[in-house]
């Protein structure tokens, strides 16, 4: 199957860069109006949470950049993040919703609730995140 155009953005891993992520996704949706609103919304939530995770955890102690590539396929939406930050300690089994009155710790559990595939690996120099949401039948 032919791959659709890849949309990419890179920037510093700081909170303001979340706007770059949203702007990129707006461009993706305008080029793919066939992606259903619910798929867009849930994928965007998953992608935003992973971007937030990179900004919060991988960036310390020094400033780093991250790169995001998004691809729309006939059956799925894919986002791939890459950053040169430190290795992140991730345990997907531990990613459950915290108590209602907790002010943090929901990010990864939210991602797992809205995507079909989530993977993280560190290749010795870079962190790689893959976020996949299968598209709902239109």
């Amino acid at each position, binding site marked *: 199957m032919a791959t659709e155009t890849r949309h990419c953005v890179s920037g510093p891993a700081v909170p303001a860069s979340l706007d770059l992520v949203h702007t990129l996704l707006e461009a993706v949706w305008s080029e793919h109006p066939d992606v259903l609103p619910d798929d867009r919304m849930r994928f965007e939530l998953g992608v935003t949470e992973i971007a*937030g995770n990179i900004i919060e955890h991988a960036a310390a102690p020094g400033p780093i950049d991250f790169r995001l590539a998004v691809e729309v396929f006939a059956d799925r939406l894919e986002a791939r993040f890459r950053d040169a930050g430190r290795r992140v300690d991730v345990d997907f089994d531990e990613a459950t919703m915290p108590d209602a009155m907790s002010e*943090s710790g929901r990010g990864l559990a939210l991602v797992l609730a809205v995507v079909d595939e989530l993977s993280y690996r560190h290749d010795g120099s870079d962190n790689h995140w893959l976020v996949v949401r299968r598209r709902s039948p239109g």
Partner: protein
Amino acid sequence: MIELDTSQAHDVAVLRPQGRLTMVHAGDLRAAVDQAVGDGRTHVVIDLGDCEFMDSSGLGAVVGGLKQARQAGGDLRIAALQPQVMTVLQLTNLDRVLRPYGSVPEALRGD
């Protein structure tokens, strides 16, 4: 950006976050609730009619505000949720703690 409306009553503050409530503006919301409660406006309503997107950081700030308002003897309510924000609330099971109101007047009345 967060608008503050104190015209409802002496102990009420209505906060209106505009656009996306993510880690970019979560601190602004915390500061706004902090100031409102500090000024004795312990009944806080967050009008989410113009908030198109919220992530876990934004939600964390809302929960923080809820705790702060309750500790001061008041309450925090959320109103006019857009579909994305409603989804986030449901996925995190917070709709059990933070009942979504249809509008600011409904939130103020509590019905």
